[in-house]
């Protein structure tokens, strides 16, 4: 399917992504966070972060068939790495109130001394890549023993690994690095991102997270469409047949696991950037479950599905269903029923309905462009399966 996609389609996709980014950039300028539509910006920021997290999980769970539940752990590693290396010198002692900070340099700050504004941007980029790299390194270490396990055992072992990481980051003896169970703040955060051109200040607080997510997801798409991606799918469909075809199982599983964790780390860093804080206690297994449900909502094995699923998930839980929590929804006033927490109940019922009756999710295994050329593709699809 992927090979037949012509060059023209690739260009079209590229232009669509550029147009999307331009739209986000414009929205970032015209909507103020305090506006009524300010919610839209928050949904776009968080949606972008979760879209990246969901796509990276889909790479593992949907494309390679490795059911891993350690995502929150890798996101935590990314968030902390990013936060630690971007806290400016002057606020470091205020952040590490109870400890003597061990890491005493901020990458964006050091670089901006020599290169100005460009240095700050470069520093943030380096911090992001470092965040991914730390998550990837730990994924490699944990993958050595754990990837030999079969489906459910792998799920529970990775879940356990995420819990171990969370405990480790809250340990008081590591306080000088992780600030113990206290939160990290004052690092380079999205709400401060600005571009100054000819005296005009342009806000980048939504654009940057969306850009990071877009670039990362594009990279994942390229991996999925490469020979590696085809090997992953072969492993998912039948491990033994894949091995017989000459695919090195251990190697490819490790590549999928490390790549997925790298992008999970980047998404964790972006999450910290958007939320302006990083705290180990937020990265519980509930977070992994939520990301998994986003993947399911969009359709396991579809990248555009995961993206749509995450934006819908975030928009519904943060914005559209908010009325269910505050007494008034769709014009119906019932403060006794519509009180705190009702939104999540309705939401989880919707999720259960999707899981039980629409197992394919929104997209199934299709991608968004497939929908536009449905007619022509159908016979080819049947032949494929």
């Amino acid at each position, binding site marked *: 399917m992927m090979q037949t996609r012509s060059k023209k389609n690739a260009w079209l996709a590229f232009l669509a992504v550029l147009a999307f980014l331009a739209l986000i950039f414009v929205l970032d300028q015209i909507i103020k966070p305090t506006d009524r539509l300010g919610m839209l910006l928050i949904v776009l920021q968080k949606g972008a972060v979760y879209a990246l997290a969901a796509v990276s999980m889909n790479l593992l769970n949907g494309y390679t068939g490795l*059911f891993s539940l350690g995502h929150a752990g890798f996101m935590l590693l990314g968030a902390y790495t990013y936060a630690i290396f971007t806290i400016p010198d002057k606020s470091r002692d205020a952040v590490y109130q109870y400890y003597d900070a061990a890491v005493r340099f901020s990458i964006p700050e050091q670089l901006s001394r020599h290169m100005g504004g460009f240095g700050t941007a470069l520093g943030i980029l380096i911090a992001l890549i470092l965040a991914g790299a730390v998550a990837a390194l730990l994924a490699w270490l944990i993958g050595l*023993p754990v990837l030999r396990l079969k489906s459910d055992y792998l799920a529970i*072992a990775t*879940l356990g690994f995420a*819990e*171990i990481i969370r405990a480790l980051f809250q340990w008081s003896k590591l306080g000088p690095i992780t600030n113990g169970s206290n939160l990290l703040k004052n690092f380079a955060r999205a709400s401060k991102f600005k571009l100054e051109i000819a005296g005009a200040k342009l806000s980048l607080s939504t654009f940057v997270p969306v850009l990071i997510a877009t670039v990362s997801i594009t990279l994942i798409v390229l991996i999925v469409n490469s020979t590696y991606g085809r090997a992953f799918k072969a492993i998912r469909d039948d491990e033994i047949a894949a091995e017989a075809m000459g695919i090195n199982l251990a190697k490819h599983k490790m590549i999928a696991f490390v790549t997925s964790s790298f992008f999970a780390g980047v998404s964790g860093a972006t999450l910290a950037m958007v939320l302006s804080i990083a705290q180990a206690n937020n990265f519980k297994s*509930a977070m992994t479950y939520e990301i*998994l449900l986003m993947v399911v909502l969009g359709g396991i094995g579809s990248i555009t599905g995961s993206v749509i699923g995450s934006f819908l998930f975030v928009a519904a839980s943060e914005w559209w269903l908010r009325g269910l929590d505050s007494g008034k929804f769709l014009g119906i006033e019932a403060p006794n029923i519509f009180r705190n927490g009702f939104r999540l109940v309705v939401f989880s019922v919707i999720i259960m309905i999707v899981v039980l009756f629409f197992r394919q999710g929104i997209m199934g295994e299709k991608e968004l462009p497939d929908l536009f050329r449905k007619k022509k593709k159908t016979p080819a699809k049947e032949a494929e399966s």
Partner: protein
Amino acid sequence: MNVLKTTLPYIISGISVGGQYALIAIGYTMVYGILRLINFAHGDVFMVAGLMMVYLAASLPLYLAIPLVILLTVLLGFTIERVAYKPLRTAPRMSVMISAIGVSYLLQNLALYITGGLNKNYPQIPWISDRISIFGMETSRVTVITPFLTIILVIVLVQLINHTKIGMAMRAVSRDFETSQLMGIQINRVISATFIIGTFLAAVGSILFFTNYPGVVPTSGAMPGLKAFVAAVFGGIGSIPGAVIGAFIIGVAESVIKGLDTILVVNGVISEQIGLATFSDAFTFVLLIIILVFKPTGLFGEKSTDKV
């Protein structure tokens, strides 16, 4: 001697916690044995049993509330299986696992809505919450009762599985799902029976567990649930004695680690507290990863071979 004296209280409370985990772990191991499903919602059913006790004990006398809690929990377990797992019987295993995660998410959110996220005080149950003194240490009676009650329940269960018709059916189904279906075993009845037994034990476990804790919150079930599952894997999933032994090991390890700082300081190994208690939960998973790497089938698990 000093080492023993400082460690003993932690070991005793660990055995008690282990007994409670064992009661939850049996539900996991039996369901996994038959459906090959990690029932992620099991820990939350345990939490719901705790909440039901809180609400029912407020309006009913305890001798009515306790049986009612057990009955309603069993009903909940039965309903979850019928609504969320039965329609997916022919679906891939991953779908059923996701459905279990969905149920867990739903139960937690429902509990959050009903309680408003507040800590609900667990009712005092007379006699079993009484303070008693054993080996010169002060504890509640439930700590002493739990291990014995657990062992009695497990013996009854093993008898049930080995000597009754439904038990035989369970063993057959866990050995080979399809063949037993062909032999005329009514799969759905066997599966329902498994869920009923599992949730019954979880309800008993929840009464014992929450008596020792100040209250119930919507996330109370998640950690004990995961630990009980680890216990089931540790002992060899599908094996009931394995799950019980695994649960006792994990309970003791967790409890000793909670007090490890104090033990080490008192015995002069380290000079000040170093916060090792942070790892009381994480250590369970360290044990899990170690056992999975060295003996993936657990202590008492049967070796399974996959045919192409």
